[in-house]
């Protein structure tokens, strides 16, 4: 169990370091079965479309199944999502505190450096001064280290994405399309959500929609397919619906199309949709 928790920490840590202070909401945990010589993988999917994967050992998955008595993929995913959300909340709080501390440290260092510079520029006032070149060198080394760290991280992310696309092609991925296209899609979606839906989406990675014809409630999760749930008045899942617009659209567009379909032509959409 602890192994899976560590794995989740790694995945969530990637998202935090990737997005800095603006930590995206965790919307789903994905489990991919082993295929051929590839081992099963665990993925963390975030509200902004960012997704990251890591291989998981079947024995570790089994430990989670035992711990939560989750013997099907949906329950296992739900259990992992609960676990991950708890971990993520803690990590976000720690991350924000660390960001604040680093900013404070950097501010102090910059102020000190500035003071030293000023002293050197006016030797008449302080002929002795501190050994500024050594301090500047230390600062430059720190900056270099930080740049290298970012570069390494970026490279790891690129290779992760490359492997994903090479293995499964673009159709599989939930964050299909260029980054710009995804951003446009999300922007269009956000422009057309009500304030409550927007808040809900930003916080949880889903938003609720009321069926225009039946008045039933649906929950649209961030994703491209199999992302609609019909929920009862207590917010419990009744069933899942899968429909989406044709063409390789980005997640934001698909969710907006699903929202419009449920609100404006619910019966037609459900007739086309597959129930799961």
């Amino acid at each position, binding site marked *: 169990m602890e192994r899976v928790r560590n794995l989740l920490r790694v995945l969530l840590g990637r998202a935090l370091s990737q997005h800095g202070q603006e930590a995206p909401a965790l919307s789903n945990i994905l489990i991919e079965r082993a295929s051929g010589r590839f081992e099963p993988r665990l993925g963390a999917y975030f509200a902004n479309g960012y997704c990251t994967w890591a291989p998981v050992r079947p024995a570790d998955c089994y430990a989670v199944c035992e711990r939560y008595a989750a013997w099907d993929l949906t329950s296992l995913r739900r259990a992992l999502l609960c676990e991950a959300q708890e971990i993520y909340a803690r990590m976000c709080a720690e991350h924000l505190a660390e960001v604040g501390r680093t900013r404070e440290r950097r501010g102090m260092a910059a102020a000190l450096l500035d003071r030293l510079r000023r002293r050197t520029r006016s030797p008449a006032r302080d002929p002795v001064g501190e050994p500024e070149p050594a301090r500047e060198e230390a600062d430059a080394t720190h900056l270099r280290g930080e740049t290298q760290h970012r570069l390494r991280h970026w490279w790891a992310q690129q290779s992760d994405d490359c492997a994903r696309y090479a293995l499964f092609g673009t159709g599989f991925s939930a964050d299909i*399309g*260029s980054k*710009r*296209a*995804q*951003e*446009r*899609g999300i*922007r*269009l979606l956000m*422009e*057309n*959500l*009500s*304030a409550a*839906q*927007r808040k809900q989406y930003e916080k949880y990675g889903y938003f609720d929609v009321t069926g*225009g014809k039946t008045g039933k409630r649906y929950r649209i999760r961030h994703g491209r*397919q*199999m992302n609609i749930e019909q929920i009862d008045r207590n917010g419990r899942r009744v069933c899942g619906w*899968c*429909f*989406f*617009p*044709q*063409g*390789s*659209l*980005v997640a*934001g*567009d698909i969710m*907006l*199309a699903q929202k*419009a*379909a449920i*609100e*404006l*032509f619910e019966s*037609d*959409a459900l007739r*086309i*949709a*597959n129930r799961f």
Partner: protein
Amino acid sequence: MAVQIVMDRTGDTRHEFDVADPEGVARAEERFRQLTGKGFRAVALSGDGSPGKLVGKFDPHVEQTLFIPQLQGG
């Protein structure tokens, strides 16, 4: 200015036109006919997140029209 928003691979493509410009309106109407002919659904967006309105016939006075490709089951 009215705008037609067509969902596509790039996120969306926006076509703006001036309701006072007959040529622009004609082009917009033609685009509307072509897209709805291909199975796109036109939705007049409300702009505040509330449900919009399905548009069956071209109306140049609709401020924002969103074109949604035909749906398919997954």
